[in-house]
């Protein structure tokens, strides 16, 4: 029984290790998933130049949940999307298709890799934020479903692009989308600073929804953001479905 179990999980374990090794080996990926979030968090916490939402005293209180949302977006959408896009372009996915690994274990390994990196990001970013004076409160357990739904939404978007576009086009688009969603996501610039029409649009996008959900989960006394949760859940369901329907393995 144990040998059977070991035999069945060995490819998965090896694949997780490979996925993690590859992610950590891509310097630019680490920069996007850890470097940029930490830089934004630290710089704008110490240099109080950005507008803050009403009622927020120190910048880090607004920035910390926003940067956590940014980290989820960068790993689930940018790192996963770009990595998978190039694996598709270099026929790695095709080649794996004729091994006994199988798609379910490959997908499980990728999900594990993304969640593992996100866990590390949450720990590091939270620690730095606390060092900068952040004192989280509120319904903090809701961070877990927020991470899960956010990951599903952004991984769906990343894989939608990765499964349909050429590697380099995908790379450009993922990075471009990252920047747009960073600016429209209420992560470092409060949504109410945006022009009214753009703000309304931004609230329908997964970045702002995740940032708002994160913010409410770690800030005591805030109202339950039902609309943001609804937007996030819709993205978390529809984006993976669209990715699965359109994904081309070759």
């Amino acid at each position, binding site marked *: 029984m144990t040998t059977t179990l070991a035999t069945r999980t060995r490819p998965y374990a*090896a694949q997780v290790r490979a996925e993690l090794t590859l992610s950590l080996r891509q310097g630019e990926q680490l920069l996007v998933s850890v470097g940029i979030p930490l830089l934004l968090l630290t710089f704008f916490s110490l240099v109080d130049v950005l507008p803050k939402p009403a009622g927020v005293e120190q910048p880090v209180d607004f920035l910390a949940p926003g940067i956590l949302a940014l980290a989820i977006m960068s790993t689930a959408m940018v790192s996963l999307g770009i990595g998978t896009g190039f694996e598709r372009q270099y026929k790695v996915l095709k*080649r794996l298709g004729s*091994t006994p690994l199988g798609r379910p274990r490959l997908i499980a390994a990728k999900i594990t890799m993304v969640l593992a990196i996100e866990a590390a990001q949450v720990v590091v970013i939270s620690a730095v934020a606390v060092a900068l004076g952040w004192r989280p409160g509120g319904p903090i357990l809701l961070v877990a479903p927020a991470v899960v739904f956010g990951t599903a939404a952004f991984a769906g978007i990343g894989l939608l692009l990765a499964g349909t576009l050429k590697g380099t086009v995908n790379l450009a688009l993922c990075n471009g989308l990252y920047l747009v969603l960073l600016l429209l996501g209420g992560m470092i610039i409060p949504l109410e600073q945006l022009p009214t029409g753009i703000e309304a649009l931004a609230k329908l996008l997964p970045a702002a929804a995740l940032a708002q959900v994160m913010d409410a989960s770690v800030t005591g006394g805030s109202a339950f953001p039902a609309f943001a949760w609804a937007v996030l859940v819709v993205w978390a369901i529809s984006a993976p479905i669209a990715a699965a329907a359109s994904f081309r393995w070759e």
Partner: protein
Amino acid sequence: MSPAPDPREPEETPAIEVAHLTIRYAEVIAVDSLSFHVRAGEIVALLGPNGAGKTSTVETLEGYRPPTAGRVRVLGLDPRRDHARLTPRIGVMLQSGGVYTAMRPPEVLRLFASYYDHPRDPDELLERVGLTEQRSTSWRHLSGGEQQRLSLALALIGRPAVAFLDEPTAGIDPAGRQTIRSIVASLRDDGVCTLLTTHDLEEAERLADRVLIIDQGRLVAAGAPAELRKAGPAGEIRFGGPPGIDVGSLGHAVGSTTEEVEPGEYVVKVAPTPAAVAAVTGWLAEHDLPLSDLRAGRQSLEDVFLRMTGPEHDPPPKPERSRR
């Protein structure tokens, strides 16, 4: 789940069975009612020009695409329906790519080894394909030939019963070519059924027990390389010389028709006996004409290939559809 036994089948089930395989992409017919079998321990080369349908055929057997019509079986299994049962028993070398670009040869070999129940030893295999020096070089920094050798190693890591090698020696240096040839030859001794594709005649001749020449998706000739060479016209002498020789006079001297099939390339339609060769060379000597090349009897596989697949020369010899 196994298909009902076919009473007409020989007692031993072939490792690869292709029956009237047709593959159509939109308006293009890539493979047109192709049929062949490959046994265990046999090395078969699909030989043909680019676009002949070689890769389409192999990828259908690997389960990557469904046949438009016809039937394919690998080890008695349907490559798509029984995909999960088949993957532990086949090894695949794609025409290009297929490896994580940032991974080093030992890493990717160990990763692939983990997919199989009884893999080969990654270190031994690494040495066998001559990549021990490249242990710490990531795939993207390997030369084309090194990448090909790593792909071959990955195809063999799981001890497959059937190996599909798509252009295994394309764009590879002579030393690497030699390594790949010797590894492929050793598969025969291990009882592995090997189907490879190539557009290189010499490669097909050196590697394969049997060559299937395909052109525009159809099988135009099949057999051992030696058989194929014999399958040509009963007898002829070919030689190269200056263009514009008086073929009428030469034909008269030799007692047979002579044609200049290309400028400077002549075919004498006569059984290639020593006497006939002497008559040809004697006539050339008499007319003080240089001889650049002379072939009698056996045609090279290249002649067969060009006759079967090439654009018709003029005068066009009707391409024979030899089935031998």
